[in-house]
C-alpha cells in the first residue's frame, strides 16, 4: 500500500459517518465512493457501520401499549 493510499484511507475513515449520513458534498462523496470501490478494508468498515445503523433503526419501532392506544383514540375522537 503506497503512502498516498494510506492517507486516503485515513481520510475515508474520518468522514465515513458523515458520508453515510448523506452530509458530504458531491465532490467528497464521489471521492469516498471511488475509494470504497477499490479498498476492501474501508469497504468492510462502511458495511459494518451500515449494518450497525440498520440494527439501531429497528429500535425506532415499538408496539404502543393499550393505554396509549386508548388515549390516542380518545384524542382522535375529539377532533
Amino acid at each position, binding site marked *: 500500500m503506497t503512502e498516498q493510499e494510506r492517507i486516503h484511507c485515513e481520510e475515508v475513515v474520518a468522514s465515513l459517518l*458523515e458520508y453515510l449520513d*448523506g452530509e458530504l458534498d458531491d465532490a467528497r462523496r464521489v471521492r469516498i465512493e471511488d475509494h470504497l470501490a477499490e479498498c476492501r478494508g474501508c469497504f468492510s468498515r462502511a*458495511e*459494518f457501520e451500515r449494518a*450497525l445503523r440498520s440494527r*439501531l433503526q429497528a429500535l*425506532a*419501532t*415499538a408496539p404502543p401499549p393499550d393505554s396509549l392506544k386508548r388515549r390516542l383514540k380518545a384524542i382522535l375522537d375529539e377532533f
Partner: protein
Amino acid sequence: MEHGSLRSAHQRGQSGRDPPACAIDNRTFFTLRVEELADRLYGVALRFTRNRAAAEDLVSETVVKAWAHLPQLEDRTCFEKWIFRILANTFFSQCRHEREETLAAEEDEDGFSLFDRLHQPFLLWWGNPEQELIHKLLCEDLDRALGALPDCYRAVVVSVDLLGHSYAEVAEMLGVPVGTVRSRLNRARSQLQRALWHQAQAAGLVSGSRDEGDAHD
C-alpha cells in the same frame, strides 16, 4: 367535509390550486396516518425519553399539536417527516434546560471504533468478526447502549440515525450550530460503540479476545 373552519383555513392557504389530496378529508387522513405510524411514534418517543409514561405523554402531545398545525402542512406526502419533526421538537423543548448540564462533563471521547476493536491483531477470530457481532447483538444490547447515553447525545443519535434528520435540521431544532450537532454525534456514536463493546465482552460475544482490549479505556 364537516370540519368547516379548518378546511377553509386550509383552502385559503392554497389560493386557487385545488390538490387531489383533498379527496380525503383532513380528519380521516390524520386518523389513518396516526394509526399507521403509532408503532414508530411510540418507538421513537421511547428512545428519546427512556420512560414509558413519558413516551406516552410525548406521543399524545405530538398528536394534539400536529392536528392543530395540520392546515400548515402543504404537502400531505410529507406527513411522516413532518409529524416526527413535531415529536422531536416537542421532546427537545422539554429537555432544553437539562441539556446544559451534561455538556461540561462530556469532553474527551476519543473516537472509539467497534470495527477497529474487532480487527485488533490479537483477536482470535474465524470468519468475519464484524458480521458475527452484528448478528449476535440483541435489540436489548442496542437499547441499553443507546439508553446509557446522556440525553443530549441520545437526542442527536435518535434524530439522525433513527429519524434520518439532517445535521442542519437537528441544529435548527436544538438551536445550536451545525458543528455542535456534528461533534455531539461523533461523541455519541463513539460512546455507543464503546458501550456495545463492553456489553459484547461481558456477554462473551468476543470470547477470542484477551483483556488488553480495555487497556486504553
